């Protein structure tokens, strides 16, 4: 479904992503692991269209989508949950969710039905529906951004560090939800620093080091690879 070839992303003279190629098949949950600064987020932002790649190609369902704008990517079925957990703090939970469905705002009935279905998965959001998103706790905000991304009915969900800055108990809850989401049929590319947790729920994984793919394989293979720690440290 998603095919990234020789992706390169630059911030001025700095090459954050040097050479990344990866594939995500329909229905898979693929983890993208690596240390801080390995280029995980930049890779994800490039796929979401928020960063223009310096080189390489991105294909979605066989179609070239390299360097399209973020809004065009959403139309083609990609939804991004950035690590900055960007809720719109002054908007209510309901308004945040409504914006998530912006690209299909005309099918009101279906949007409402989807919202209801997401409330079953994230019941706390139903309770907080009229509250400004900025007043939610970190874990609640994380649920909101994931639910908001799902409102566009994406084919591919990009999750950037959903565990970042959350208490361990909350992280487990979020990971449970990711598993449940995956069961609804959405394909997921998950960026995580917490490799252990990510590998437990992923089918396959890529390990990034210094902007390039250092290892790839099934989740079990990667989990049992003895040199994983070394790769993480960039050795």
């Amino acid at each position, binding site marked *: 479904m998603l095919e990234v070839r020789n992706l390169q992303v630059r911030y001025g003279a700095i090459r954050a992503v040097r050479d990344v190629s990866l594939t995500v098949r329909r229905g898979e949950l693929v983890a993208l692991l690596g240390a801080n600064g390995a280029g995980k987020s930049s890779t994800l932002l490039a796929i*979401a*269209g*928020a960063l223009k790649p310096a080189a390489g190609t991105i294909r979605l369902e066989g179609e070239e989508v390299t360097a399209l*704008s*973020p*809004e065009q*990517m*959403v*139309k083609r079925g990609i*939804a*991004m949950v*950035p690590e900055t957990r*960007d809720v*719109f*703090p*002054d*908007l209510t939970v309901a*308004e945040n969710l*409504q*914006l*998530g469905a*912006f*690209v299909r*705002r005309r099918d009101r009935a279906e949007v409402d039905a989807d919202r209801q279905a997401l409330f079953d998965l994230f019941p706390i959001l139903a309770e907080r529906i009229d509250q400004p998103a*900025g007043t939610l706790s970190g874990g609640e905000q994380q649920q909101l951004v994931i639910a*908001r*991304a799902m409102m*566009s009915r994406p084919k591919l969900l990009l999750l950037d560090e959903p565990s970042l800055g959350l208490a361990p108990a909350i992280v487990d809850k979020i990971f449970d939800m990711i598993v449940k989401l995956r069961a609804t049929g959405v394909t997921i590319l998950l960026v995580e620093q917490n490799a252990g947790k990510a590998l437990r729920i992923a089918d396959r994984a890529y390990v990034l080091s210094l902007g390039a793919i250092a290892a790839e394989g099934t989740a079990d293979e990667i989990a049992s690879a003895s040199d994983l720690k070394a790769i993480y440290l960039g050795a």
Partner: protein
Amino acid sequence: MAAFIQFAIDTLSLGSLYALMALGLVIVYGILRLVNFAYGELIMVAGYTLFLLNGSPLPWLAMAAVAVLMAVLTGIATDYVAFRPVREKSVTAVLITSFAFSTLLQNAALLFISPRARLVPVPDIFSQSVHIGGVVTPLRNILTIVVALLLLAGFAVVMKRTVLGIALRAAASKFTMARMLGVPANLIITSAFAISGLLAGVVSLFWLGRIGSVVPGIGLEPLLVSFIATVIGGMRSLVGAVVGGFLLAAIVTGLNYTLPQNLLQFRDAFTFSLVILILLWRPEGLIRGPATGQRT
């Protein structure tokens, strides 16, 4: 009591215009973090549209509608000419292009119309007066207040209840995130410019109605006034722009009432001193804007 009513009406009618103008400046600034320096020219364009339509068989309301439409179109043109081509390059570039567009419009008016003042049609109703609580006041002032309140209410409904309004508020907070939800950047920015044109267009009807004529440089004062009002109000807050507009009007009207005749010519110096005091007390402005995200 009569003096108070007079003061209230004067402040509210002047404040209505300041508030609407400031709102039009902030709606663009909030999203792009860029001041549109060609904003005052929207008033000028509406003014010359009225002048050119003067003597036509159209009723005044129709002329007014055309003038407002021209302001909206000029607002959108500002986006296409001065902002969109250089928006992603640098802030300085947009600063220069918006000044350039402003100069271009002013010089077009100088060249093709005249450097001298031109009369604009004013409806009869503007020159009538009414008695309120023992005070005689131009009906125009009351109309200004009523129209401004209706427009502010309509604006609030659009921002609260429509998808476009919610998207505008989201974009003012975190533009890139809004785009990653599929909100098209160009649609949002063009809408902001169109709304800003609508507000300036409506203001122009009353602004010109007070003066009765239009000159190429007419846009400077409204631009300055709305800029000051937004600075007082907090630069990025829509509510702040409205509050700032009314507060500035209260200061100006208050000085008009209290300054002795020989000091009145220095009124602006007193106004700006008070603005400085407000900013020393609240450097961020009175009302905080939405939580910030990054520029595009």
